[in-house]
């Protein structure tokens, strides 16, 4: 899959499909490739942060900076794998795992109160004081049986979010 070619071969599509565990159909992968090429204006084979931020709908999202860290330097195959959690064919486990990865910015498999505070800060901005955020977080953690010093791992996330009706789906436009 060269950077300069804008045509995907059947091999390429199947390779990408393998990599994303078949969460996207071949048609969707072709559409995603068109989108990838459209966003990758410089043709470098990956979408830079600048190029992501030129999509206003993405730039106004409070979690854009966090996601940019995860999206940085991804080639097309990895880009599709990143989006696989949003496919209607993705399992609840895959979605929860994605959410865990958003929280676990250093990738050490543990989400501490600090990580949760950071995400909460992104989401609420200046509209809640830092103290209040800590207060609320401590309160709900304790109610759920954790302390403010506990680190959550993936299985904790599965337990907490497991029986909620998580709606995290995106439709890939297919011409």
């Amino acid at each position, binding site marked *: 899959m060269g950077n300069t070619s804008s045509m995907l071969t059947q091999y390429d599509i199947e390779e990408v499909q393998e990599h994303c565990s078949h969460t996207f159909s071949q048609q969707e992968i072709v559409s*995603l490739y068109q*989108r990838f090429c*459209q*966003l990758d204006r410089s043709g470098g084979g990956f979408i830079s942060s600048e190029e*992501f*931020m030129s*999509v*206003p*709908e*993405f*730039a*106004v*999202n*409070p*979690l*854009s900076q966090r*996601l940019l860290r995860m*999206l940085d330097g991804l080639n097309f195959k990895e880009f599709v794998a990143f*989006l696989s959690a*949003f496919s209607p064919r993705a399992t609840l486990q895959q*979605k929860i795992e*994605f*959410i865990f990865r*958003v*929280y676990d910015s250093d990738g050490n498999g543990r989400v501490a109160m600090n990580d*949760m505070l950071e*995400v*909460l800060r992104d*989401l*609420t*901005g*200046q*509209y*809640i*004081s830092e103290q*209040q955020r800590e207060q*609320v*977080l401590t309160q*709900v*953690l304790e*109610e*759920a049986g*954790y302390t403010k010093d506990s680190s959550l791992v993936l299985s904790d*996330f599965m337990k*907490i*979010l497991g029986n*909620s009706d*998580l*709606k*995290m*789906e*995106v*439709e*890939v*436009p297919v011409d």
Partner: protein
Amino acid sequence: MSGSEKLTSLSSELDLDRPNLEDYLPSGSSIQEPHGKLRLRDLLDISPALTEAAGAIVDDSFTRCFKSNPPEPWNWNVYLFPLWCCGVVVRYLILFPGRVIVLTVGWIIFLSSFIPVHFLLKGHDNLRKKLERFLVELICSFFVASWTGVVKYHGPRPSMRPKQVFVANHTSMIDFIILEQMTAFAVIMQKHPGWVGLLQKTILESVGCIWFNRAEAKDREIVARKLREHVQGTDNNPLLIFPEGTCVNNHYTVMFKKGAFELGCTVCPIAIKYNKIFVDAFWNSRKQSFTMHLLQLMTSWAVVCDVWYLEPQNLKPGETPIEFAERVRDIISVRAGLKKVPWDGYLKYSRPSPKHREQKQQSFAESMLRRLEEK
């Protein structure tokens, strides 16, 4: 509680200077308001924000406005391909030279009339203006002929009255030429480099043009002042403004800038729709220079479009200029069959204002605090 106090003082600062984005964005999550006591899983569940972000990555309404969709290739089989080749030959070797000749003749006639008129009639301003207007209309007709422009004008021709401005949707700089051949408008334009800039400085000055520079910060006030001065003058040509501020692909309209709508004048909307079967007239200034764009038009079969002069509108009592702008945008979009998107065209060149993100943060914070109170 300090938190809620902080909330009320900041919400008054968030001057909602634009229509509510949430009405346009496809975020289903904003419709379902979460209820019930706040639990850990509610705080950890960031799926709505993530879904919106992923939705924007996969497809967004802003990029769609500037996408030039290439037509389906129809020449891919044995008998259509030679037909297409004949077409190419006719277009490039017969039509194109013919058109170049037409344009050259037009320029010769124009320059040989314009230069004497401009310099010799310096004293007789009225006559000079009349002749210059006629000549500009003439050269624009030559331009339109050079692309075999087939323009159908609907509606009454614009009249020269004071205190009125004309607004139109913008697809390419040829919009201006197509409208100018009917009526010598004064226009407000971005200063361009190269030969276009030269034309702007010399010929367009005679019909009365206002220049702006997107890059300059203070520019907006200067331009607003110039606009006001122009519409007050009884002698000036009617002013044509493209409130989108940038070229859009003729399938969508982006938000109209309110500058044209707060001058206290009647606003006459003009809708322009190009027929894509003949050529895609969208000028993607990021992909092509204007010269290449013109050459592309001159080597196509024709430029076919409809121009509708719509009913003049006035600011309704109690309407803000922004609401007025949106109302006129609606009128134009409906007439030309364009879809509206809530984005400012200048987002092509800059990042969105932090106000939008703050709006989302505020609504999330409010919802969170509200649920804390619940038992």
